[in-house]
C-alpha cells in the first residue's frame, strides 16, 4: 500500500522535523538562555499534552473519515460543543453536582447518541439534499455556539454549569511507579487510553477492512464504488454519522476531563474542532498521522505553558498562534495536502 508508504514518509518527515526543531530549540535555549530543560520536559507535560490531544484526535478521526468518503464536515467544532453540553446535561440529570464515575460514562454515551441524532439531520441535508458542505458546516458551529449556552441557561440559569465531576485516572498499582512510562501509561485517564485504541482501530479499519476500502473509494471515485455494487450514499451516511459521533465524543471527553461545562465566549471547546481539521490535514488523512499531529499541537501548546511556568518570557498570546502559522507554512511550503478527488461533490446515483 503505497498510499501508506507515502504517508509514512510524511510522518517520518513530520516527526523528524519536529524532533529536530525541538532539539535545536532545546540546545539553543539551554546554552544561550540557561533554560532548565528538566523543568520543561516533565511527566506532567507529557500527560497534559496527551490530554490536550485527545479530544482533538477524536474529532480529527471523525472528520477525516467523512472527508475520505467525500464529505467535508467542517462542523466538527459545532459537534464538539454539542457533545460537551450533552454530556454535562445528562451528567447533571443523573447525579446533580455529585455524579458518580459510572454516570460520567453513561453521560458520554448519551452525548454520542445526541450527536448521532443531530448528525443524522445534518447528513440528510448534506447527502440527500446536497447542501453546501462548507456553509452547512459553519452553520453547525453557529448552532452549537448559540444553542449550547442557551440550553445551559435553561438548565442551570447560567451558561456555565456548576462543577459536576471529572473522570478518574486508571492507576495500575506498582506499574505506575515505573519512572516516566508508569505515570504516562499506568496512571492515565481511561479516555486517553481509549482514544489510543480508537486511533489504531480506525487505522486498521480504514486500510485493512473492506469498509475502509469503500470509504476511500467513495471519496476518490464514487462512481467506481457504485459500479462495484456498493451504495455510495450509504457509505457517506456512515462516515458522516461517524464523524459527528466522534466529534461529539471528543466534546464529551473534553468535558469529562474538565468536569464542568463553560458556555461563555467561544465555549470550552474554544477552537479545538478547527484544530482537529488542521490535524487531519496535517496528518494527511491518516488516523495515525492525525493523532500524531494532534499530539504535536498539544505538545506545542503545553510547551508554551511550561515556558511560562519556568519563567521563560514569551508573549503567550503570540506563541499560541504558533500552530496556525505552522499549518500555513506547511500547507504552502511543505507540499500540498492532496484532498480526496470527490470531496464536496454530491453523488447522484441516477446520473
Amino acid at each position, binding site marked *: 500500500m503505497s498510499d501508506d508508504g507515502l504517508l509514512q514518509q510524511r510522518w517520518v518527515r513530520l516527526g523528524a522535523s519536529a524532533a529536530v526543531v525541538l532539539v535545536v530549540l532545546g540546545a539553543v535555549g539551554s546554552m544561550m538562555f540557561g533554560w532548565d530543560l528538566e523543568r520543561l520536559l516533565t511527566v506532567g507535560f507529557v500527560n497534559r499534552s496527551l490530554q490536550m490531544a485527545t479530544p482533538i484526535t477524536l474529532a480529527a478521526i471523525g472528520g477525516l473519515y467523512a472527508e475520505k468518503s467525500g464529505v467535508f464536515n467542517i462542523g466538527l467544532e459545532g459537534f464538539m460543543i454539542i457533545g460537551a453540553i450533552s454530556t454535562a446535561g445528562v451528567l447533571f440529570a443523573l447525579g446533580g453536582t455529585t455524579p458518580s464515575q459510572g454516570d460520567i460514562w453513561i453521560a458520554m454515551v448519551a452525548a454520542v447518541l445526541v450527536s448521532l441524532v443531530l448528525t443524522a439531520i445534518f447528513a440528510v441535508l448534506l447527502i440527500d439534499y*446536497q447542501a453546501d458542505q462548507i456553509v452547512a458546516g459553519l452553520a453547525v458551529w453557529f448552532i452549537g455556539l448559540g444553542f449550547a449556552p442557551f440550553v445551559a441557561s435553561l438548565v442551570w440559569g447560567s451558561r456555565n454549569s456548576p462543577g459536576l465531576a471529572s473522570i478518574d485516572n486508571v492507576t495500575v498499582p506498582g506499574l505506575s511507579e515505573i519512572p516516566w512510562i508508569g505515570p504516562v501509561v499506568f496512571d492515565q485517564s481511561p479516555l486517553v487510553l481509549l482514544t489510543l485504541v480508537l486511533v489504531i482501530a480506525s487505522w486498521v479499519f480504514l486500510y485493512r477492512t473492506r469498509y475502509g476500502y469503500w470509504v476511500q473509494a467513495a471519496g476518490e471515485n464514487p462512481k467506481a464504488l457504485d459500479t462495484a455494487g456498493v451504495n455510495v450514499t450509504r457509505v457517506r451516511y456512515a462516515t458522516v454519522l461517524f464523524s459527528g459521533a466522534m466529534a461529539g465524543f471528543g466534546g464529551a471527553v473534553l468535558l469529562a476531563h474538565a468536569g464542568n461545562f463553560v458556555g461563555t465566549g467561544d465555549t470550552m471547546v474554544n477552537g479545538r474542532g478547527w484544530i482537529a481539521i488542521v490535524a487531519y490535514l496535517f496528518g494527511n488523512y491518516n488516523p495515525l498521522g492525525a493523532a500524531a499531529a494532534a499530539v504535536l499541537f498539544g505538545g506545542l501548546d503545553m510547551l508554551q505553558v511550561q515556558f511560562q511556568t519556568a519563567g521563560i518570557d514569551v508573549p503567550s498570546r503570540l506563541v499560541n498562534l504558533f500552530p496556525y502559522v505552522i499549518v500555513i507554512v506547511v500547507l504552502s511550503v511543505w507540499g500540498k495536502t492532496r484532498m480526496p478527488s470527490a470531496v464536496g461533490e454530491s453523488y447522484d446515483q441516477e446520473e
Partner: protein
Amino acid sequence: MSSVSDTDESKSRLERIAGYLLDATVLERIGIAVGATAFALLIGLVIVALAGYDPFRFATQLVVGAFGSERAIARTLRFSTLFVLAGLAVAVAFRAGVFNIGVQGQFVVGGIACVMSIIWTAPYLPTGTVGGVLLIGIGVVNAIVFGGLYGALPGALKAYAGANEIITTIMLNFIAIGVVGWLVNGPFRGEEATSVRTEQLPDYVAFPQVVFSDPNFSVVGFGIAVLSVIGVAFVLTRTRYGYDMVTSGYQATAARFSGVDSKQTIVATMTLSGMIAGLTGAVFAIMIQGSYTDPAGIGNYGFDGIAVSLLAANNPIGVVPAGILFGGLESAGSHIQIRSDVPVQLINGIIGLVVLFVAVPELFRMIGARMGLGGDDR
C-alpha cells in the same frame, strides 16, 4: 453617442435588468432565502415555546426590535451596514470561485490599520471638518490597503503554492485576532485608556449625523455600503476584470481557455475581497467604535458575512436585502436582550439555522414543488 440611442440603450438595459429580476432562478433564490429564514424562525419559535417563554411575544419583539422605532431602525441599519459590506466581501470571492473564509481577519486588520493610521497622522493635520475628512480618507485607504494585502496573502498561497484557501483563511483569522489583540493590549494601547483599547480617534473624525441621531450610526456609513455594492456590481458585470473573475468562478477551464491567468485572478479576487473587508473594518472603527479594542470581543461580522452572501446567492445586489435581514435579526436580538428574559444566545442559534437552511436550496425546491409553487424540477 446621440441622446436617442442613449435612451434606447438605457431602456433596453432596464428591460434586461427587469428580465434578470423576473428570471426564474432569481425568483427561486428569493423564494429559497425567504423559505430558509421563515423555517429557521419557526423552529426558533418552537424552541422558545418549549423553553417556557411566550413565542408570540417573542415574535412581536423580533419585529419591534428590528423595525419598531427610530432607534430600532437605526440599530438595524447599523448592523446592516456591516453585514452588507462583509457579505459583499464574501460574495466577491465566492462569485469568483474562491472561498474566502477569512473576511473576519481582513476586517480586523483593516480596522486596526484605519485606527492607527488616523491616530498617527492626526497631529500633522488640521483639526475640524477638513482634518476629519482628510483623516477619514487616510484611515479608509489604509484599511483598504491592509485588508487587501491580508486577503492577497492566502490568495497568493493558493495560486502559487497550492495551499487550500479555506484552511489558510481560517488560520489567518486566528492569527489576525491574536496579533491585533496583542498589539491593542501592548504596543498600540492608548495611554489614557482605562480599558483595553487604542487611543480614541479625534472627535472630528466621525461620519456626520444625518436623519438618525444615533451616536453609533450614520446614514453615511450605510451609504458607503450601498455605494460599495453598486461599485462591485458594476465591476463584476460591466468590466472585463469582473468578467474574468466571474468566469473563473463559473468554469475555471473556460476562463483559462479565454486567456484568463487563473493564478492572477485568484490573487486579484482575494485582494478585492480583502479590500472590501478592510473597508468594513474602517466603517466599523470610525462609525461605531471610535477606537480599536481587542478583536476577540468584536462581533463575528466576517462569518456572518458568509451567511449573508449565501442568502443572497453570492449576488452583490442581493447582499443588500440579505444584509438588512441579518441586521434586523441582530438588532432584534439586542432588543430582546434588553426587553425580555429569553437568553440572547437563542438568536445566534436561529441565525445558525438560517445559515444551515440557506445551504440547502434543494430542500426548499422540494418543498416548493410539493406545494406546487413553480416547482419546475430543475
